[in-house]
């Protein structure tokens, strides 16, 4: 590969090479701000004390976002401590709670750092400026003669005053200015430095860490009876004997919604089993034939939007290539099934949930229970990694209904494994079709791309999004879905290539009708669109006889994209790896707005069993200014392994009567035996550049890099996921 080497300022942080590349013409955190509003979520919540409060108890920082295992607590605390000039441990962080924090919607889409991180960075900076100004005027000294350190303002003569002594309750109850005098990144001592996660020690020592570990003294245990399939209704359930089972306190029924409350958890499980055995159901509509699902989806009516129509001057095409790609429904696969706790005191309902949006959940639960929203409080408590809209919201809705029927005691609803696997909303199956015209030099001069998908968000907001609502005597229904608009997009997320393509048309075919329950999962449509685009870039490169990395660089002008592509290729040793050895490459910038990620990987030789395994993978990422380098690495590596699991194994299964991938035997995922031998992540730091978010950046490039490596090794192009042994056998590869 002949790409020029980057000139870099390189430094070792935490034992891993970070490459710092200054961006010309950028001030500190030129975060996307309109001119009349402060940046990030400060635009919607400009009061400084919505974000930072200082009192006798210390410093409290508030975020409307939630810890999902992504390291959010640690990163936001780093940001606040840095700009307030206090030690990391001095910050107490409060996360999503409808009674206490700003309403920052969902914790999703890699938005936490751009939205909440940017808000806290700027709010903290402005609070520090206010503290300095107050001290300066009380000492009659110029502001710039004062410094801040360890929670005090200091004068040159040695005088010092603690932050808490400078302000009253109302000092910070003022609107943020549009611009902040942020610290220069070169002065950072906390941001950009590896910070051990605050939540890990409890998690590895059996400390209370999850909603599942909550045990208020008055707690009782509930289980919910779910229908055997979508739309099934309860015909009969004789619960007389069940009500007499040991420990059973109450059976709650409303139409086909049935739940049981017991004193002990195992008693609730046994009562549930008895109910499953006793219930008689009228089946719902048959599910479509699985083998024909892609054709079924394509035959459904769609709302079509042309999201790109570019007609620049271009050479005539001399050859044309086309391909179609399919991907199955994929589950969130949380290791801990969903859980919700709720307490109704006769007037107010408090709900604890691991869902991603406490304010939207409050609206949904108010609708479900008929309570006014101001009588419902939703508090986020961490659960097991959710990776999108899993059963968490539904479990909270279940708990709310059960608690309302059992006032005065906290009701804990825990879903069973098979309930999570069969009822969670999956990431939708999708189809894409791409056609490209190449000129005499093999460059792409014409590009046509179509993507067909159901919605990627049926998140609550309305009560009809909650599962329990569908079974009530007066059933609620799911509102008709609407597409998530560009530039972020839903099914069309990352459907527009970042490459320079003079003629290009991209059409999003949004299919409102949903034969299988679906909603948001990590990356939304990006996983499929990047799989398709990056597989097809390789097809075009192969058609031309070009090196896949060189071919990408040929079509790429964005300098930061070129940097991650070049870095991944260099660290992998792309130019030294023999073509045909099973090496694969892929790149994307998440949402075309977020983090840049490139992956180079090597497959292990394919054995007789047809099972693919990645031997070595090298990832390069640029998420803007680094907050916690180890946090980024953890997310990027985790995203890679999870996406590799989707790609090699995962698909929801069903027959006419319901979902059949009910447990981990029916829904296999990655285990230790198929891990790579080596996985490296290289991070490019961009001091002072906006935070781009990281959590979803490696999902999309992963399947393409694997499929491209498979092509490199075998000259066979597989375009339907998962790339599992039956698929390889069908292709004659095993």
């Amino acid at each position, binding site marked *: 590969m002949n790409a020029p080497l980057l000139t870099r300022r390189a430094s070792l942080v935490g034992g891993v090479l970070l490459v710092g590349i200054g961006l010309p013409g950028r001030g500190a955190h030129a975060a996307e701000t309109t001119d009349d509003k402060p940046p990030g979520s400060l635009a919607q919540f400009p009061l400084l004390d919505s974000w930072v409060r200082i009192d006798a108890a210390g410093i409290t920082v508030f975020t409307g976002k939630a810890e*999902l*295992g*992504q*390291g959010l607590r640690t990163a936001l605390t780093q940001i606040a401590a840095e700009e307030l000039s206090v030690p990391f441990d001095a910050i107490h962080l409060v996360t999503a709670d409808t009674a206490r924090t700003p309403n920052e919607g969902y914790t999703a889409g890699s938005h936490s750092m751009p939205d909440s991180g940017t808000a806290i960075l700027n709010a903290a900076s402005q609070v520090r400026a206010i503290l300095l100004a107050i001290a300066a005027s009380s000492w009659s000294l110029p502001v710039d003669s004062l410094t801040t350190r360890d929670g005090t303002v200091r004068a040159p003569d040695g005088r010092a005053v603690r932050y808490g002594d400078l302000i009253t309750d109302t000092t910070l109850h003022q609107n943020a200015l549009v611009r902040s005098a942020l610290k220069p990144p070169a002065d950072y001592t906390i941001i950009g430095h590896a910070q*051990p*996660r605050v*939540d*890990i*020690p*409890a*998690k*590895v*020592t*059996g*400390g*209370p*860490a*999850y909603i*599942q570990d909550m*045990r208020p003294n008055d707690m009782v*245990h509930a289980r919910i009876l779910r229908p055997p399939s979508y739309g099934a209704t309860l015909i009969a359930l004789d619960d007389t004997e069940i009500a007499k089972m*040991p420990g059973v306190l109450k059976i709650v029924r409303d139409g086909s919604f049935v739940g049981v409350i017991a004193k*002990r*958890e*195992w008693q609730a*499980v046994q009562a549930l089993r008895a109910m499953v055995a006793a219930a008689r159901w009228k089946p719902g509509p048959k599910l479509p034939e699985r083998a024909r699902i892609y054709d079924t989806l394509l035959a459904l009516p769609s709302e079509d939007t042309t999201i790109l129509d570019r007609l620049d001057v271009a050479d005539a095409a001399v050859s044309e290539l086309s391909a179609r790609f399919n991907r199955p429904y994929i589950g*969130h*696969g*949380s*290791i*801990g*099934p969903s859980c919700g706790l709720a307490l109704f005191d006769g007037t107010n309902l408090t709900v604890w949930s691991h869902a991603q949006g406490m304010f939207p959940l409050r609206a949904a639960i108010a609708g479900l229970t008929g309570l006014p929203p101001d009588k419902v409080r939703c508090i986020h408590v*961490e*659960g*097991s*990694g959710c*990776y999108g809209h899993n059963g968490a919201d539904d479990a909270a809705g279940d708990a709310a209904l059960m608690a309302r029927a059992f006032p005065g005691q906290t009701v804990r609803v825990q879903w*069973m*494994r098979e309930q999570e696997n069969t009822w969670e909303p999956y990431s939708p199956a999708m189809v894409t079709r791409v056609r490209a015209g190449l000129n005499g030099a093999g460059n792409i001069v014409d590009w046509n791309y179509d993507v067909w998908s159901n919605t990627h968000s049926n998140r609550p907001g309305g009560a009809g999004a909650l599962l329990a609502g569908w079974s009530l005597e007066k059933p609620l229904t799911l509102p008709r879905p609407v597409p998530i608009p560009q530039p972020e997009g839903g099914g069309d997320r990352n459907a527009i290539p970042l490459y320079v393509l003079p003629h290009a048309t991209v059409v999003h075919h949004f299919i409102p009708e949903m034969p299988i329950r679906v909603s948001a999962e990590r990356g939304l449509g990006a996983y499929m669109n990047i799989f398709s685009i990056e597989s097809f870039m390789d097809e075009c490169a192969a058609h031309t006889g070009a090196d896949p990395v060189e071919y990408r660089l040929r079509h790429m002008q964005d300098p930061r994209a070129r940097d991650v592509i070049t870095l991944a290729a260099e660290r992998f040793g792309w130019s030294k790896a023999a073509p045909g050895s099973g090496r694969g490459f892929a790149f994307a910038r998440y949402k075309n707005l977020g983090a840049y990620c490139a992956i180079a990987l090597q497959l292990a030789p394919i054995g007789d069993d047809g099972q693919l395994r990645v031997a070595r993978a090298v990832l390069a990422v640029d998420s803007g200014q680094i907050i916690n380098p180890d946090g980024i690495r*953890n*997310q990027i*590596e*985790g*995203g*890679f*392994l*999870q996406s*590799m*699991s989707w790609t090699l194994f995962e698909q929801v299964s069903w027959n006419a009567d319901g979902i059949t991938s009910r*447990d*981990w*035997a029916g829904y296999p*995922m*990655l*285990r*230790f*035996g198929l*891990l*790579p031998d080596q*996985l490296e992540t290289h991070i490019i730091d961009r001091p002072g550049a906006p935070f781009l978010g990281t959590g979803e950046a490696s999902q999309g490039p992963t399947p393409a890099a694997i499929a491209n490596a498979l092509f490199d090794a075998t000259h066979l192009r597989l375009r339907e996921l998962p790339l599992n042994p039956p698929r390889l056998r069908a292709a004659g590869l095993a």
Partner: protein
Amino acid sequence: MIAIDINGRSRSVDATPETPLLYVLRDNLKLNGAKYGCGLGQCGACTVLLDGKPVFSCLTPVGSLAGRRVRTIESLGTEASPSPLQRAFIDEQAAQCGYCSAGMVMRAQALLETNPGASDTEIRARMQTNLCRCGTHMRILRAVRRAAAALGSASASPPQAGMRDGAVK
């Protein structure tokens, strides 16, 4: 009432004999470490040690435990004073959501107690039983290797934490 030996203490619990140990640990004894993941022996989130061997507590009836010793992650160490293996998980930042962590630690603990210098291949083979959704696997392997290296070099002495509980096999 059923008497069981948990973390070196005899506890008497109000449960029917067929109740899975997992429910007794979490509900009766209010221990957080063992997690409910599947209840089917497929994920390992509920892993505890029974006479030093890793078992799925979700499939172990509490009535089958007479005369046997159960150890949970709470017996290893604390946040203030983690065991060598727990320390290695913290040093390697080997968690994302961490829901799988306690089960991972216990399965690795059982391996290192019998084979303190376990090789990478042995560790991978043993950990195959436990699922992680977050893709933390590489870090978990590093943590177990780190602890194995520390234990392997510190002669064949059993882990201190086990001794502290008087529950060394």
